Structures are given as structure tokens and as C-alpha cells.
């Protein structure tokens, strides 16, 4: 029975949970906790420049390590600034523990200075949250918070701690004494249903694995089992944006990403398959297109740890609630014990069909020797960095994000950090900071657009303060490219507010923060410029001036099914005027 103050308890609980890094920003209502942080050395605190960035940095940390990210911010504006990041983590199932200060309990509800109803505001955007009114309950609550954040489908949780609770003395409890009993999501899948899936796999003529972020969240075992299963069956595999890296891009079953800007062969295979095996994906609307016409001829299995994901948008014949690693282990064992059967002849035909689709070369674009095409910039970035085993890629949100997903290959999980569900512009830069903190010697690149990047550019201060060599690879088209693309396709080329008239000089901006800036506008200089960026041991802003009117293809127009993809027959402004997008 150890007595200590609430503030000390917070730090002790974090240590006992194995926390090494906290991302945060101090303020009045968390001063006692900051005072405790000051007086110890085990937990490292990273001072960001905005609370939203603290959450995204913690997301980057969590996604690149598989461990929960921890955030510490003050009451009121500290908490409300964190809301976007928390919502982002909820949509992408990222485990976070967010600790917020609160005005003292006797002032709660009085509209006190920097008071906000933090648990009320964050109730819909957390997996669970707590307001701790009693110091004796504080340690137990923090341990529960870690348990909830990391069990079942991971997600962000928030613990709101009034200032008087931080000052008061109470009894500390250790993690193993915490009350976590009743929240124990089911991890083992139903054996009968798994057997039905295996039977379907044995006879399927046109099977496909459709995998998502759940594989990565499940952990390394899930990745290993998935790779073994795909390679042993010879089935093709596609993945959502969230799941890239769980199966290697160089693997023989790999079709590339699917979805709105996914590869032609992946989407056509999803449409024409006769057995769809969804592993840890959720039939998101960016994936399905028009639901009524989604993969009309297939039997569908869905493996998900969250029962509410199953039958939410797409009815499936074989629902399997459980953790991906556990279910795959059972499925693989059952499939092996039944004699490793697949329909070889049909599979060969299926692959022949897929090869036909591949001949379309859906990522083709018209290159230029005068201006850098964004796709070309990413191809060169890929060529010059793909051999680095320690390469981590973050992105912002928009065209550059989709091109990065199309043109960069991921060989391992936890190497790709992008805002999938919420689509948060401003995610990538702080996420890259979190990744670099977790992997100090790794190559961390944030592929960005200038619009998104400016949303959290203040984090240059953080990058410089902690000497983080994050590479900000900005594909600068002076446009909000994806908005412009939609305006071009759907709103009669009326480019309402989708360009910036007053962009900063990114090289000078980097220098103003004490970092290195590089600008490149000539395709001939690109390789050298990228090499210069990679060679610099410190944060770099790489201002890559690219074609301003490039559209991102292939594209499933919203409200259309998979087989009605647009291909970029031609690119550039002329192509758009000529209606260069053709339906295939």
C-alpha cells in the first residue's frame, strides 16, 4: 500500500505500464504532473508545438512500434485541440492513452478558466473515457485505460484528471491489481465457421484475400501467418490503405492496394472473385464503391475482432469474430490437416485473368523532362530508398497520399503511417516525429502535399529541438490537388478555393527554424536532390515543385462499383480539358 500524490501516481503508473515516451504540452491544470516528470528520468517527454500534433505523434509512435502511444495535455483548449487526433486514432484503431488535466473537482461545472467538458466532448471519439474524481481510483483507472486501449479492437482512451486529484494523496495500485476483468474481447474464432471457410477455399475458383489494418494491429504473428497462408495457397491478395506492408509488395500473390484509387487488377479481382476472404478490413466506402454492386458473385468471409464491423455494410456468409492471428492460426492448421487442397486448375485460369488486367498498366502516366510529375518523384524516392530496411513512410492526406500508396512498396508491417478513416490533413508531419522518436536511427520520410503540410508546420520547432532527421518530402503543386481533382470531375472545373496564392518559400522556412531546405523543380536534378536530402543528418524540408494539374488515377468514381474504374489515359491540363479520363 504505497501512498503518493495523484501526480506522482500518474508517472508511476506510466512507468509500470512500460511507457518510455510521452508526447505533450503543459498548462495550468497539469502542472503537478509536469513537476513530477521534471523530477525523474525514466520517461521521456516530447514537447510538441500544438496538442493535435501530440496526438498524431503518439499515433506515429504507436503504429510504428505496436505499443500504445501516450499523450499528456492540459484542460480546456489542450483537450479540445487533441480531439482531431483522438478521432483520427479511433477511426484507424490506434491504441492511445490520452491524459488531460481538468479544473479542480470543486470548480467543475462552474465555467472555470480553461474548463471544458472533456469527457463529454471526447465520449464519441474515444473507445472509452474516465473522469477521475478520487485520487484512490487514479492508478486503477490509468491501468484500466491501458487495458482497454490495447485489448480487442485497439483505440484511443482518455483519462481526465482534475488538478486537486493530482495534488491529493492516495493509495497506488500496481497494474496486476487493477480491475480489468470484465472487458475481455473474444480472440478465438468459431471453429465450425473457420472450417466452412477452409472448405470454401479448397474449391474456390477465383479466390482473393482482402486484408486491412486489423492484420497489422493483431501483431507480427498475424503478419507471418498471413504470408504463409497466401504463399501456401497461391491465392492473390490485395490490401486496404491501412493494411499495406502486412503482405510484402514483392510477394508473388500481391495485387497492390484496392479501393477508390487502388489498382485496376485489385479492384477487378474483387469484383469478379467467387470467394472473398476479408481479414481485418471493414468494407469501408472507399473500398466498396456502390454497395449494391459490390462483388456480386462472391461468397464472403469476414474475420474481425469487432462484431459490429461484421454485416455493417456488406452481408457476409461466413462471419468470424476473433483476433486475426488466432483465427489464421486455426484456419491454416485446419487447411493443412485436410490435405492443403486448392483448386489448382481454376487458380491458374484466375491468375491468367489477373495478368490480363495487369496489362492495362493502370499506374501509367505521361512523364515529362521539363516538369517533375508527382508519380515520377515518388518512383525516384522509391528507387533511392527501397533498399533501406529501416525506412518508415508517413503521409498527409490527398493526392500525394494515394500516389505514395500506389508507387511505394512496403515489405514489412508498421512501416506505413497514414490517416485512413478520418483523412486528417496535418497528420503526417507530427506522425513522422513520433516515428523518429521511436526509431532514432531509421529513415523517416513524410510524403506530403504543401496544403496538408502547412496545417501542422509549427512542428518544425519540435523536429529541430529534438534533432529529429525527419524528411518532409513535399509534392508542391500549389493546389489542394484532390479537391481540385473532384472539382474537375464533378463540378465543371470550377476550382473553388482549391489553390493557395501565398505559399511560403519552403527553403527559407526551413532555415528560419534552423533546418535544411531543398527545392527541386527539374526532373534532371531530382535524384541528386533526393540524395542530398537523404544524406543530411537533420530535419529537411524538400520542396518538390511538381506538375500542378495532375490527376490521380485509377479512380472509382464515387457511387460506382469496382469494375467502372477510370483510368488516366492521359494526364496534365490538356487531358482534363479533353475529358481524358476514360471508363473501362
Amino acid at each position: 500500500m504505497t501512498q503518493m500524490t495523484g501526480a506522482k501516481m500518474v508517472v508511476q503508473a506510466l512507468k509500470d505500464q512500460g511507457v518510455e515516451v510521452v508526447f505533450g504540452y503543459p498548462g495550468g491544470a497539469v502542472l503537478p504532473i509536469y513537476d513530477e516528470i521534471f523530477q525523474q528520468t525514466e520517461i521521456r517527454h516530447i514537447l510538441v508545438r500544438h496538442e493535435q500534433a501530440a496526438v498524431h505523434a503518439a499515433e506515429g509512435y504507436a503504429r510504428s512500434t505496436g505499443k500504445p502511444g501516450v499523450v499528456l495535455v492540459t484542460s480546456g483548449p489542450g483537450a479540445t485541440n487533441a480531439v482531431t487526433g483522438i478521432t483520427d486514432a479511433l477511426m484507424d484503431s490506434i491504441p492511445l492513452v490520452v491524459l488531460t488535466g481538468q479544473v479542480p473537482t470543486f470548480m467543475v461545472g462552474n465555467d472555470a478558466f480553461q474548463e471544458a467538458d472533456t469527457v463529454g466532448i471526447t465520449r464519441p471519439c474515444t473507445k472509452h473515457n474516465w473522469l477521475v474524481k478520487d485520487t484512490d481510483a487514479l492508478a486503477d483507472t490509468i491501468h484500466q485505460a491501458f487495458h482497454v486501449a490495447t485489448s480487442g479492437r485497439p483505440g484511443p482512451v482518455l483519462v481526465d484528471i482534475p488538478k486537486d486529484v493530482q495534488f491529493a494523496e492516495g493509495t497506488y495500485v500496481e497494474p496486476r491489481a487493477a480491475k480489468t476483468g470484465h472487458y475481455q474481447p473474444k480472440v478465438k474464432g468459431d471453429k465450425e465457421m473457420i472450417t466452412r471457410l477452409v472448405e470454401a477455399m479448397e474449391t474456390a475458383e477465383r479466390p482473393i484475400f482482402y486484408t486491412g489494418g486489423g492484420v497489422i494491429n493483431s501483431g507480427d504473428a498475424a503478419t507471418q501467418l498471413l504470408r504463409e497462408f497466401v504463399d501456401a495457397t497461391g491465392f492473390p491478395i490485395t490490401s486496404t490503405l491501412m493494411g499495406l506492408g502486412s503482405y510484402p509488395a514483392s510477394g508473388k500473390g500481391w495485387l497492390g492496394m484496392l479501393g477508390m484509387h487502388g489498382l485496376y487488377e485489385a479492384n477487378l479481382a474483387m469484383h469478379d472473385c467467387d470467394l472473398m476472404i476479408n481479414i481485418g478490413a471493414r468494407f469501408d466506402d472507399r473500398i466498396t464503391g456502390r454497395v449494391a454492386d459490390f462483388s456480386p458473385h462472391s461468397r464472403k468471409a469476414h474475420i474481425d475482432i469487432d462484431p459490429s464491423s461484421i454485416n455493417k455494410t456488406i452481408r457476409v456468409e461466413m462471419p468470424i469474430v476473433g483476433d486475426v492471428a488466432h483465427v489464421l492460426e486455426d484456419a491454416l492448421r485446419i487447411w493443412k490437416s485436410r490435405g492443403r487442397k486448392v483448386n489448382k486448375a481454376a487458380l491458374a485460369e484466375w491468375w491468367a485473368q489477373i495478368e490480363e488486367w495487369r496489362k492495362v498498366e493502370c499506374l501509367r502516366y505521361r512523364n515529362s523532362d521539363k516538369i517533375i510529375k508527382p508519380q515520377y518523384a515518388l518512383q525516384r524516392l522509391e528507387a533511392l530508398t527501397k533498399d533501406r530496411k529501416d525506412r518508415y513512410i508517413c503521409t498527409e492526406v490527398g493526392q500525394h497520399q494515394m500516389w505514395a500508396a500506389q508507387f511505394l512498396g512496403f515489405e514489412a508491417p508498421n512501416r506505413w503511417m497514414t490517416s485512413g478513416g478520418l483523412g486528417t490533413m496535418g497528420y503526417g508531419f507530427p506522425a513522422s516525429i513520433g516515428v523518429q522518436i521511436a526509431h532514432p536511427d531509421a529513415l523517416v520520410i513524410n510524403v506530403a502535399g504543401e496544403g496538408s503540410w502547412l496545417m501542422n508546420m509549427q512542428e518544425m520547432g519540435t523536429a529541430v529541438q529534438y534533432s529529429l532527421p525527419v524528411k518532409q518530402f513535399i509534392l508542391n503543386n500549389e493546389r489542394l490537388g484532390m479537391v481540385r481533382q473532384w472539382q474537375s470531375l464533378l463540378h465543371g472545373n470550377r476550382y473553388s478555393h482549391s489553390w493557395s496564392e501565398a505559399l511560403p518559400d519552403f527553403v527559407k522556412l526551413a532555415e528560419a527554424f534552423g533546418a535544411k531546405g531543398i527545392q527541386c523543380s527539374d526532373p534532371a536534378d531530382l535524384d541528386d536532390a533526393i540524395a542530398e536530402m537523404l544524406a543530411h543528418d537533420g530535419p529537411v524540408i524538400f520542396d518538390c515543385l511538381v506538375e500542378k494539374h495532375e490527376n490521380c488515377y485509377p479512380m472509382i468514381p464515387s457511387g460506382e462499383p469496382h469494375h467502372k474504374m477510370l483510368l488516366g489515359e492521359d494526364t496534365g491540363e490538356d487531358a482534363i480539358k479533353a475529358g481524358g479520363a476514360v471508363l473501362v
Partner: protein
Amino acid sequence: MAAALNIQKGTSKHSAYDLRDPNAEAVERHTLAVIVDNEAGVLARVIGLFSGRGYNIDSLTVAEVDHEGHRSRITIVTTGTPAVIDQIKAQLGRIVPVHEVHDLTVEGPSVERELALFKVVSGGDKRVEALRLADIFRANVVDSTLESFVFEITGTPQKVDAFGELMRPLGLTEMARTGIAALSRGS
């Protein structure tokens, strides 16, 4: 491979959000019993789920039913297609302080009761008639003045509705209903 371009440039009829399944099935009414930890904010979580995801609440009652275990029982009457009802149950089950979700409508026969108070202000024949009908419906008089009665009635929602309709022409001025409490029949 090259078919006609189905989407028209310069039109905005293709919204990203117009993806609802047109084959919606018939709407059903279900009574759900949700056992939760009686902790601060738990009702807000349940109600927030319904409002945030656009589900209906026809009736809702909540009270602590296990003082030692700090458990409350929330009874919710909701409507939706079978797919929506399934989704509501799955979403409720996801809330951390929710222990059990029972769909009383599909789990076998159940008893549903509601308590209501009706204030009837009238005189003469109407007053006598109100009292006579209350007797037929086994409603109790829980307050009376020379001009008014307050009736207490317990029963199925249909019975309470029927009594309310009869009281309307007899001087009904106010009513309060508790919403439905429900339990499954048998053991």
C-alpha cells in the same frame, strides 16, 4: 474494355455519400435490455450511440437494479430493419461498461409494462364517467380534488394508450409516462 463514360463531367449528381442499399427491408420494433455498470456517463454513452449513428429510440427507461454490483438496467424500444437492429446490438455490446445486451423481442416471450399518470380536470357526468372507466382499466386514483383526479395506470403501452384516448374528451390536461420496463417470461 472501353465502354461509354458513365459519369458526366461538370455534374454533381455523383455524391460519395449516396451509397445506401436500396433493398432496405421492413422496419421492426425491438425491445432491448442492456445491463450496464452504474457509472457516470453510461446513459450518455448509450444515448450518444443512438443519436450519433442515427438510430431511433421510441422509449427508454433506466434504473439501478443491483445496488451491490452497481449495475443498471436500461430498457430501450427501438425500430429499424433487421440489419440495423443487429448493428445496434453489436454497437451497444462494444461500449466498455456494457455487460449484456438482450433482445427481448427475439429471445422468446417477454412481459412489457409501463406506468403512467393522467390528470383529468372535469365536473358532472364527465367526472363520473372518468372514474367509471378508471375502474374498468384498474387505474388507481392517487390524487383528487373537487375538480380533478390523478389516475395511476400500469399496463402494456397499448393499454395505457387506450386509457389516454378515453380520458381525452373527459378533461385530460396532463400526462406522464415512464417508458417501458420489460423482462423475459419464464426462468
